[in-house]
């Protein structure tokens, strides 16, 4: 079994693989990240069956936490499998923070948090802002401290999909990207290594100051989102709210009552950035 260990924010991962290539790719993309001495989770990339290790190799995603019905991926998408597996460990096992399925960037010690369904643009927006003077904190999970309410960075590889790939390739050097994976369950995916300051500062939390619900592909618009709607939507966006019990309730109500929320519609990156910067100036 080939092995790689990486620390991302407060979580340490051990990724094992029967194939060497995915481990080599992970090591290259996560080269600037620290190596944990003790890991929180183990992920294993294993062959679906002994012969599928060599013939039409197919990757089964296994680890401390698994979904028995998870569909295997072809070896060409092993990096995606590893990233999905790490997401699964956090989603099912993390209890030290309230997890929100969201992206986050930081400026002046304050965090902009963006949440929404797949395709809303939260990863792309966080990637763009992270390369425009904001500090990238994460594009998959926002970790809210259960006592202080601060957002703890979790800056994994940024998962860019479809049109977002070209948009970021126009701005960022080629050696910051992982392989292009076509035909995944979510279309084309290419991972982007976060900016170096995001990795160097991944121990620095930020106070949530603005919550956005972006929707890509609609005419530019802004509307306020009532606290009760925010609460309901964030319970849906959290994988561990129920498991955290009273601590989760306290963290979520504190967040909802203290952070202004807006829904934004936009047709392109320029419109989104205009809305983001205006709302940040007005509300954060």
């Amino acid at each position, binding site marked *: 079994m080939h092995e790689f260990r990486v620390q991302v924010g407060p979580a340490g991962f051990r990724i094992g693989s029967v194939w060497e290539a995915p481990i080599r790719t992970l090591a290259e993309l996560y080269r600037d990240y620290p190596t944990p001495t003790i890991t929180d989770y183990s992920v294993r990339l294993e062959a679906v069956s002994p012969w599928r290790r060599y013939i039409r190799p197919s990757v089964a995603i296994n680890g401390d936490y698994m979904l028995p019905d998870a569909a295997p991926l072809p070896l060409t998408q092993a990096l995606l499998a590893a990233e999905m597996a790490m997401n699964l460990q956090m989603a099912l096992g993390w209890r030290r923070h309230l997890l929100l399925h969201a992206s986050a960037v930081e400026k002046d010690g304050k965090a902009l948090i963006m949440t929404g369904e797949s395709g809303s643009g939260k990863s792309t927006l966080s990637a763009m802002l992270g390369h425009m003077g904001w500090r990238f904190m994460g594009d998959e999970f926002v970790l809210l401290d259960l006592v202080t309410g601060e957002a703890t960075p979790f800056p994994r590889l940024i998962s860019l999909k479809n049109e977002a790939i070209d948009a970021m390739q126009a701005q960022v050097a080629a050696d910051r990207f992982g392989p292009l994976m076509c035909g995944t369950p979510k279309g084309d995916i290419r991972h982007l290594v976060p900016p170096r300051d995001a990795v160097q500062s991944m121990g620095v939390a930020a106070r949530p100051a603005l919550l956005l619900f972006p929707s890509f592909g609609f005419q530019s618009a802004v509307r306020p989102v*009532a*606290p*009760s709607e925010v*609460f*309901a939507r964030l*319970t849906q966006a959290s994988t561990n709210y*129920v498991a955290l*019990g*009273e601590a989760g*309730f*306290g963290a979520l*109500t504190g967040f*909802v*009552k203290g952070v202004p929320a807006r829904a934004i519609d936009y047709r392109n990156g320029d419109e989104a950035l205009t809305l983001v910067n205006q709302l940040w100036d007005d509300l954060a």
Partner: protein
Amino acid sequence: MLALPTTYLRDDNPQLIIEPLDAMTVIYHRRSGMTHIVAEPVPQILACMDTAPVTAADIARRIADTFEVDDAEVEAVIAARLEEMAELGIVERIRA
């Protein structure tokens, strides 16, 4: 034999964490671990309940005193909400 009205008892104060947000209020019920999002008049009903068992009529009178509404009309609404709250477990139904 005359039937006595159903009485209800609010779960002990520490069991309910009540956080008003806007027109809706969220309630965490420690005993069950459940979170409830409720609208008026549920928060007002809970506010009228202390440690003693009460009937819907008792609560209607207390609410009518506070909000200047017709307590006869309000009682039916409160009775329906109390039954729902009893099903959720945030009040206890004590049958006479």
